[in-house]
């Protein structure tokens, strides 16, 4: 590639076609990228004067002082400061991944399954109901039969642009989706997924997940299927696997049942940098240091939730409680720190919450109280 062309791109004087050409060249190899980076760095280093001459430092300083004042005012509200700080962290942690989920939300009861259409309309999905959702032109987007939404039989014509829907499943519920390529997805409680109504030829099949889901992906080598979560991307050709990426969890977990998947954290997939997962293995992404570790596991432990089971193997009590909260849509408080860190192994098949709590009480000498108002809250005492 000619240096002249690259410089034109860096100067932002390249035409659209030229820009695409340079970008393709950069992406072709790491060597190219390095070359481009160095060239661009030198260009930045040699053009400081352009910005310095045009920058309005006084105006910048004025803004800076205003910002400081605002910031100090917030600080003086000392009483709520620490709470606000945590609230802010919470909102950011969720916010980054929920950006596309929460805009335009209306007053909708918290415990209903909702479907957000491309235009921002939010439809309530009745449990076990039958319904049909149509777009503005009257074309059927999807049909609901019981606890399943089907996109495989929509009569939308093949458009150029990807049109997205977002399904949000609250605590205490699960739901199934059949995507346009016949890929089957089961969403666990407290999970949102954003996905195209119809995948487009020549584009990767991409969906965005926040929470836990089981995927049975239809094979299509020409169109890799990519599951994107806030901190991990999972790329597959055709396979069955489980992803758990709740914002409040410290780990993003991927368990492979069959086939093979690649995990990567970069924006774009690079085979050399990706981690390959083989069947029967679990990949943990530690969110605090972004390290991925692999572990051989009993797959059924991680997929039994699909059938309403809850299973855990040597799992700390606090994690178990979080699972129960999601599954049964309750608040559980544990007042014993020791107990929180104690690990348990158990499996419950379609058991009621009361049954599970009783089992703990009878076997491990745990006491608890249940309050039903305003929300169902269980307090576990040491």
């Amino acid at each position, binding site marked *: 590639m000619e240096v002249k062309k690259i410089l034109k791109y860096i100067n932002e004087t390249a035409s659209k076609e030229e820009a695409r050409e340079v970008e393709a060249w950069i992406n072709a190899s790491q060597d190219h990228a390095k070359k*481009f980076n160095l060239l661009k760095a030198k260009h930045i280093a040699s053009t*400081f004067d352009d910005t*310095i001459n045009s920058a309005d*430092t006084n105006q910048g300083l004025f803004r*800076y002082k205003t910002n400081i004042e605002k910031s100090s005012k917030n600080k003086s509200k000392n009483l709520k400061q620490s709470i606000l700080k945590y609230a802010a962290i919470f909102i950011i942690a969720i916010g980054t991944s929920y950006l596309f989920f929460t805009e335009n939300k209306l007053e909708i009861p918290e415990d209903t399954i909702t479907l957000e259409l491309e235009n921002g309309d939010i439809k309530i999905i009745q449990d076990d109901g039958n319904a049909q959702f149509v777009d503005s032109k009257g074309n059927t987007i999807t049909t609901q039969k019981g606890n399943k939404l089907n996109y495989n039989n929509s009569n939308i014509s093949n458009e150029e642009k990807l049109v997205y829907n977002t399904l949000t499943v609250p605590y205490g519920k699960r739901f199934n989706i059949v995507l346009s390529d016949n890929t089957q997805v089961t969403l666990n409680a407290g999970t949102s997924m954003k996905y195209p109504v119809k995948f487009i030829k020549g584009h990767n099949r991409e969906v*965005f997940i926040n929470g836990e889901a089981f995927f049975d992906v239809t094979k299509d080598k020409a169109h890799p299927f990519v599951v994107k979560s806030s901190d991990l991307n999972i790329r597959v050709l055709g396979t069955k696997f489980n992803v758990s990426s709740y914002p409040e969890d410290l780990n993003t977990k991927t368990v492979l049942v069959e086939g093979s998947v690649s995990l990567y954290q970069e*924006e774009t997939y690079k085979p050399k940098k990706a981690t390959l997962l083989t069947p029967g293995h679990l990949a943990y992404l530690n969110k605090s240091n972004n390290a991925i570790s692999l572990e051989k596991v009993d797959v059924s432990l991680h997929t039994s939730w699909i059938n309403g089971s809850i299973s855990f193997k040597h799992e700390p009590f606090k994690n178990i409680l979080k699972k129960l909260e999601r599954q049964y849509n309750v608040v559980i408080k544990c007042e014993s720190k020791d107990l929180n860190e104690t690990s348990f192994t158990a499996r419950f098949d379609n058991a009621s919450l009361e049954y599970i709590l009783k089992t703990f009480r009878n076997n491990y000498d745990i006491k608890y109280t249940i309050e039903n108002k305003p929300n169902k809250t269980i307090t576990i005492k040491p």
Partner: protein
Amino acid sequence: MTAHEALFRLYYDKLLHIAKGYLGIIEDAEGVVQNVFLKIWEKKKNLEKVNNLGSYLHTMTKNACLDLLKHQRVKTNFSNNYYEERIAIRNQFIKDEAASLVIETELEERITRAIDTLPEKCKRVFLKSRFEGLKHSEIADIMHISKRTVDNHISNALQHMKLHLKEYLTLFIIFLKNF
């Protein structure tokens, strides 16, 4: 003129240039650099561990740019692969260490030159302590901090002083912390 204002005047336009190089859009760059300075002001204490101010500010600018790109990536809804690719190219550029070094070296060079042209008042704040020979106890009185804190700051600062520039900037940090 406070030390923070002096720091702003010294670095603002240069960081703005770098951020614009990273993001391509001047308005985005302005927001990013404002945030960097606000963070510096809010977290004065963190400066204690800093021994190269230019490098520290450059790193903060890079991180703020990466954050913004990440945000843009989410906002684009991923519907546009081409746009995502551009963001990816920007992203890897910011992370490229060789490129960073080229930019940072030039930044330091610019700062050295700019210090000579610093506004008179700002220069005086700095010179008072270092070159007018104020005792540590006197600095402590003026700045309402304990003498021991001044001792610590100065000895920390001395450890990192190798060049004239570094000496200047390290002492700058002491002012900032106690502002």
